[in-house]
């Protein structure tokens, strides 16, 4: 009997050790959940937004805990987590991911005061998310390998066999995915599928994100990449001598699509005020000044100008797509990408 009691003792000890090594390990996590802290799921890359988060903390005293990922991945994560989501705020690279979370009923309405600052086309028509910057889709190309005149006016013409083996794109990146969603909204699923299958027939190379695609174009690994307009400038900032240039598709073409990065506050947020303060910050003077002066994206509030290096926003006159519709089309777009074998 004594033996058995000792064995129980060991079993209890085992449980205690397990619990204590767990709780000891848990401590750094616990300290971050104070009232003055918000948890952000960020679909935007750390290299672009880290300064913004730091400035926000310096200005408001609110700490940020950031989980980085692709926007659609994080949207799917929030949908899977439901009301249990630890996130207070979703900072997305594209409007479609925000729309998908909003359609799941997981975003709280944003104050009218904040919404009204932003141009109509860059915010949710039911007020569940608000844009913070605009970004256009382009084809970045290697100027040593491609002659500008050779590039087509329509993105649909990249399916021409002459582009075989020359195209790079990031199929798991939400900017690309949302572009496909926009094409579904504008042209229907069949036409979009035909385009994707045509691209696949040209053996495109796949990259993790816009930055990797652009760097691959710069190194000559591929000749043309489907990315957002500002990556050329970001990559040039790393090395000014690189042979890359943006090609803008024709006005009205599917390729000339403009999307918004933006934020939504989770309905289940434990610090909704802190999250709202971040939305306020991004759409207010500090956030828009950052977009205008420290990035190559387009401000979304009247009175702020984009960098002089980029063409006027009005030059992006792509398909007439309401960004609020993207959320509904995004799951369809992802499904389509899987069906054609891009993911």
């Amino acid at each position: 009997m004594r033996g058995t009691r000792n064995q129980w003792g060991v079993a209890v000890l085992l449980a205690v050790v397990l619990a204590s090594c767990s709780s000891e390990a848990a401590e750094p996590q616990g300290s971050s959940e104070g009232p003055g802290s918000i948890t952000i799921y960020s679909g935007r890359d750390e290299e672009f937004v880290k300064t913004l988060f730091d400035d926000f903390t310096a200005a408001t005293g609110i700490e940020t805990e950031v989980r980085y990922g692709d926007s659609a991945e994080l949207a799917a994560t929030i949908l899977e987590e439901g009301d249990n989501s630890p996130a207070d705020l979703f900072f997305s690279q594209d409007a479609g991911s925000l729309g998908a979370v909003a359609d799941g009923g997981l975003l709280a309405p944003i104050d009218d005061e904040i919404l009204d600052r932003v141009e109509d086309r860059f915010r949710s028509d039911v007020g569940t998310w608000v844009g913070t910057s605009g970004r256009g889709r382009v084809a970045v190309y290697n100027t040593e390998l491609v002659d500008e005149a050779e590039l087509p006016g329509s993105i649909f013409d990249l399916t021409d066999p002459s582009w075989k083996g020359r195209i790079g794109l990031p199929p798991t990146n939400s900017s690309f995915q949302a572009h496909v969603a926009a094409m579904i909204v504008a042209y229907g699923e069949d036409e979009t599928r035909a385009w994707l299958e045509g691209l696949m027939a040209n053996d495109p190379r796949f990259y993790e994100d816009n930055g990797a695609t652009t760097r691959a174009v710069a190194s000559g690994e591929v000749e043309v990449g489907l990315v957002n307009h500002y990556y050329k400038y970001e990559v040039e900032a790393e090395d000014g001598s690189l042979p890359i240039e943006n090609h803008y598709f024709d006005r009205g073409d599917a390729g000339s699509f403009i999307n918004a990065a933006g934020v939504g506050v989770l309905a289940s947020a434990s610090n909704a005020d802190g999250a709202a303060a971040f939305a306020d910050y991004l759409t207010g003077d500090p956030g828009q000044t950052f977009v205008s002066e420290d990035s190559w994206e387009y401000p979304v509030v009247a009175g702020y100008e984009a960098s002089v290096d980029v063409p006027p926003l009005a030059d992006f006159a792509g398909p007439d797509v309401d960004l609020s519709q993207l959320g509904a089309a995004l799951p369809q777009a992802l499904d389509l990408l899987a069906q054609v074998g891009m993911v």
Partner: protein
Amino acid sequence: MARAATITVEQGRGRKAPIPLQASALGVTALVLLPIVYLVARALEADASSWRLIMRWRTVSLTLHTIGLAVAVTLAATAIGVALAWLAVRSDMPGRRVWATLFALPLVIPSYVGAFTLLSALGPTGELQRLLEPLGVERLPDITGFPGAFLALTLFTYPYVYLVTVAGIRGLDPAFEEAGRVAGRSRARVFRTVTLPLLRPSIGAGALLVALYTLHDFGAVSLMRYPTFTQAIFLQYKAAFDRTPAAILSLMLAALALVVVVAERRARGRARYYRSGTGVARPLRPVPLGRWRWPALVLSGGVIGLGLVLPGGMLLMLLSRGLAAGTPLNLTIWAAGASALVSGAGAICALVVAAPIAVLGARYPSRRSRSVESLSYMGYALPGLVVALAFVFLASSYMPLLYQTLPLLVIAYVVMFLPQTSEPLRAGLLQLTPRMEEAARTLGRGRGRILKDIVFPLIAKPALAGAALVFLTAMKELPATLLLRPTGFETLSTRVWTSASAGLYSRAAVPALLLMLLSSVPLAVLARRVGVDPEGVRQD
């Protein structure tokens, strides 16, 4: 194990394990089985649209790609590992003591670090192309896809076979080979008919590790964009709102891994008993290589060149180039601390949790304890990505308090790496015959004294080796860490991954170097134990 069983039974010690021991062992087993049970439940809920994504040609092609890569890597890594082990231990190759250590070192390079250094060196417009540019070479053939994945995985997994085979060769009784030679057989014939069969269990165990590593690998195949199950599962997870197909693909991969484990167990069969043959103190006589010396040196140099010099040199080059260009150094001391913290917690917890399994297996052998032991291997056979996905799904819906916390990550490590501690512990306990304890008790020692004076000293070494192995594996682990880590928590492996997957190789260099540096500490512990140093006395 069977031998110990007879001893125990003969001695008439209680055949039945105490209930608390059984309860804790069952609890551990339940924990290990949790991910797979959840995935099955989730797959059963799948609707038609999920199955539509599974039931297509692509899934067949994924299966073929995955199996093809696993077979090719296992064959190549086994051939290299066995050849190098023989050269290091049995031959008179010049400088074999140095080689013996070098051969084990690629183990500190995680496959994803190896993959991105290979890419930046041998890619179409990589370092080698830059060197060859004056000769008019504008582009090198693309290594992504099968060649890259094969190269990366072979170069960084052969040390598993190498280490096990070295230990196996050292455990051989030279009398067998000598008998063969005396009987007039040629050296080659003796090697084929005597040595190899004796080494088969060791080589098989090493090959199993390589096959599992390849099936589990996520980092290298993703960077090389070679479409295997892990790559497809991660893409499904990242780029689909319906995550059930990811769960179904995970189950298919898990089934594949289990088939490999079972097949190896079958193949090993009775042969495993040879392993328990005790080593012989007499040193082995080196075999003269003669004119084979040059090919041997070329092979050794080639493997070390590609598997150690190239990645190490590339990292240093990326680092210095990054410094010159003024890119942020990404000096991630805090990430190193985070890596050490979470791997250390994993090692300690895996050791504690392994105790009941090991005691049950060593002291109370029975059909039931054998199946508990086999089941506790389940998590080890499962790819990290699969375990991680299951815990992400489970915790986000049912365990919100654990979700995105370090304890959950540590639990995942325990599930995945448990056999790395339970196996050495059990082996240690087997050495400790119950008779020693009984003798001590007859001499009037209490339980506490017996534990302190006899049990702990004897199992300390295997326990340390097991913990070191878990520490090393957890440190390099990528997919589970990536998916389960708390928000804002970055380890060296996640730091490397974030930069490398975005193609920012120079930013991945510092965390990668730190990772290798930290990994070499547990590796040194392990290398001593295996006895890689040819002059080293066997420690156990």
